[in-house]
């Protein structure tokens, strides 16, 4: 059976993709899962893999051309298979009945009878994916995605025309964050695999019944109280979609500066940046204050037990926020190495979608640009973001005299629907305490 090659949504926000380069030529034999082409999304260069086996019969767009998600860009089929219907573009997919009729010689006269005056066209077949702007999803998949806080555009659809169906949401939920990997080709995806197997092999397989996303261990959803709803509504009316307020604190960095010097003196392997220390402190403070490690989901607030720290990175093309997962459980060295590595690949646009989604809180540092202090814009659905300014030597009044001290200003932007002033302040207090007494981070 012929397999359509579609432009696929290879990033959560991708609406169209530029086919950078075909890696297979027309006439090449294709195995399921083969990389067919490189596609440049709005975020990175990704691989487009075959969803079926056969021969690449037709490439419908050339190298370096752009197609909207869902557009047919090629056909894989048997060498002698008639693919003219597929190439017709608008040709609807055959229904099973139609297939059965076509296959059965006995049914041919029935078709003739059906053409008699009484006949009306049979079941309307599924339309091909012509409206690529809209994510197609079954109502169930839509509901499940909402309940699990997944964006449908982050979920790869495996139904007809790329429809997102239940098994896709289940696969995405069990492989957070939603990555394009769990497509049929990825036999490692526990839920997608059984569903896709029969397509590839023609053999029957069990229905995928994936376990529902287990969020109990990693997060808890708390329905909004009436008071919380009122606060959310009134504040949102006042300020816009995300009612934000800002808390600024100036932190004494003497201890951090000393710490870095001492570590550097122990060898190059122990060199850490100020930002690494800040990330570590923020992660530990978030672990202590889960009320700030939260997502606003409209009907619920999701408090995360795990700390996935987003780190804003400026690239030539713009801002991207790679994620250091479980940052609170990682040492300074690990945070430093991982952060550096992610930032490097971010600048090369080589990040995979799962590396820049799923953060529970973000940090933006413009200190290296000499910015004293600024306010950062919250990355929804996160509830807060910390803006970090430069560490500067400033006079501080201490014991009856001005003393020069390295000082750093941080500003916490808080979504007031989730975080009230005092809650944000307490979190910031912990950050300050950890940075001013960095040995506590050893504890």
């Amino acid at each position, binding site marked *: 059976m012929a397999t359509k090659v579609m432009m696929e949504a290879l990033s959560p926000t991708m609406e169209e993709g530029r086919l950078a380069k075909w890696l297979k030529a027309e006439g090449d034999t294709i195995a399921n899962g083969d990389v067919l082409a490189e596609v440049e999304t709005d975020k990175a260069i990704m691989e487009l893999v075959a969803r079926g086996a056969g021969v690449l019969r037709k490439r419908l767009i050339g190298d370096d051309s752009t197609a909207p998600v869902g557009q047919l860009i090629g056909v894989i089929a048997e060498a002698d298979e008639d693919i003219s219907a597929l190439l017709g573009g608008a040709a609807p997919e055959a229904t099973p009945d139609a297939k*059965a009729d076509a296959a059965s010689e006995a049914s041919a006269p*029935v078709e003739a*009878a059906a053409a008699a005056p009484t006949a009306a066209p049979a079941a309307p077949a599924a339309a091909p994916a012509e409206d690529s702007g809209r994510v197609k999803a079954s109502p*169930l998949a839509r*509901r499940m995605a909402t309940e699990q806080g997944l964006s449908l555009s982050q979920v790869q659809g495996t*139904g007809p025309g790329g429809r997102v*169906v239940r098994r896709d949401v289940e696969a995405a939920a069990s492989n957070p964050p939603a990555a394009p990997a769990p497509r049929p080709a990825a036999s490692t995806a526990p839920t997608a695999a059984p569903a896709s197997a029969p397509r590839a092999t023609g053999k*029957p*397989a069990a229905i995928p019944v994936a376990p529902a996303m287990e969020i109990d261990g990693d997060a808890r959803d708390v329905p909004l109280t009436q008071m919380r709803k009122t606060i959310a509504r009134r504040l949102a009316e006042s300020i816009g979609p995300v009612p934000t307020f800002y808390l600024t604190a100036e932190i004494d960095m003497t201890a951090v500066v000393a710490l870095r010097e001492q570590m550097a003196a122990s060898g190059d392997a122990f060199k850490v940046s100020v930002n690494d220390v800040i990330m570590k402190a923020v992660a530990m403070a978030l672990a202590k204050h889960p009320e700030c490690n939260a997502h606003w989901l409209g009907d619920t607030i999701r408090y995360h037990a795990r700390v996935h720290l987003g780190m804003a990175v400026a690239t030539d093309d713009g801002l991207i926020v790679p994620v250091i997962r479980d940052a609170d459980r990682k040492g300074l060295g690990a945070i430093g190495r991982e952060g550096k590595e992610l930032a490097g690949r971010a600048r090369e646009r080589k990040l995979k979608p799962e590396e820049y989604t799923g953060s529970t809180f973000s940090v933006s540092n413009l200190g290296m640009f000499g910015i004293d202090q600024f306010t950062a814009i919250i990355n929804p659905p996160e509830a807060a973001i910390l803006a970090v300014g430069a560490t500067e030597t400033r006079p501080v009044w201490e014991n009856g005299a001005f003393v020069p001290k390295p000082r750093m200003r941080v500003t916490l932007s808080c979504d007031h629907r989730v975080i009230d002033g005092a809650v944000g302040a307490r979190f910031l207090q912990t950050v300050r305490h950890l940075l001013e007494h960095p040995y506590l981070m050893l504890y």
Partner: protein
Amino acid sequence: MPVITYREALNQALREEMARDDRVFLMGEEVAVYQGAYKVSKGLLQEFGEMRVVDTPITELGFAGVGVGAAMVGLRPIIEFMTWNFALLALDQVVNAAAKMLYMTSGQFNMPMVFRGPNGAALQLAAQHSQAWESWLAHIPGLKVVVPATPYDAKGLLKAAIRDDNPVCFLEGEMLYNTKGEVPEEEYVIPIGKAEVKREGDHVTLISHGKMVLTALQAADTLAKEGIRCEVLDLRTVRPMDVEAITASVRKTNRAVVVEEGWEVCGVGAQVVDYVQRTCFDYLDAPVLRVHQVDAPMPYAKNLEKAAKPDVPKTIAAVKQVLYLD
């Protein structure tokens, strides 16, 4: 528990209800001396006499009208049509008299009567004698339409139909008369309007009624070997329809296929799909598909008739499609 045929189950129901209530009588072509064209009324003439088991001329409209009159004066007629194809001639009495009498007389006249006979295609009876009429009848307010699939349901539902004070169209199946099933000796009555889960499953719901329930069950057996767990919901009554049962099952399985004997357009399945989209919209993972007779008069030729009928392979194909496995 005794295993008896569908035919015998109907015969038992008739006999028990005629014995229970002497207002009940059976009238139709060949029901008495010949013992019924399909022997459903076997032995009844001998047991209840010719006043209560009445042979009629070939006059469907006439004897259906006699039944309506009898019901109006307090009897409880059972009008047998040799097949529902022949009942077309009597539809004016069924639709315009029986179904509307209570309404048009401001509730003065109940219509405690049953119209019954075999429905749907048998084998090579050709276009005029191979039709499933339940969607026509179910369209009419004032009628109840019962389509039992098993001997157990046939007996329990026929007893309920005879005891009902409203006109009930009771659709049997020529191909069902010889099917067998367990039927208890003790009395039981199955309420009209209640569907039954004939087989439990959680991957897809096959919604069916009458003869096609057996097709759905066979399809479910075959699919079970591939690990696909079908729930088979037997509507048993298509009017009033058990929307609650449909909703509960489809909300559980998220997918549905309707299997029916009749044609597609305005068929019973169309009504089922309407209920499903209204009550289960947010639970659906795939469009609901229907398996039905092809949109053409039933061919006489054996191979063409087979191709035209809904069957197990077509049902399996539809199930795989709603599961995105095709």
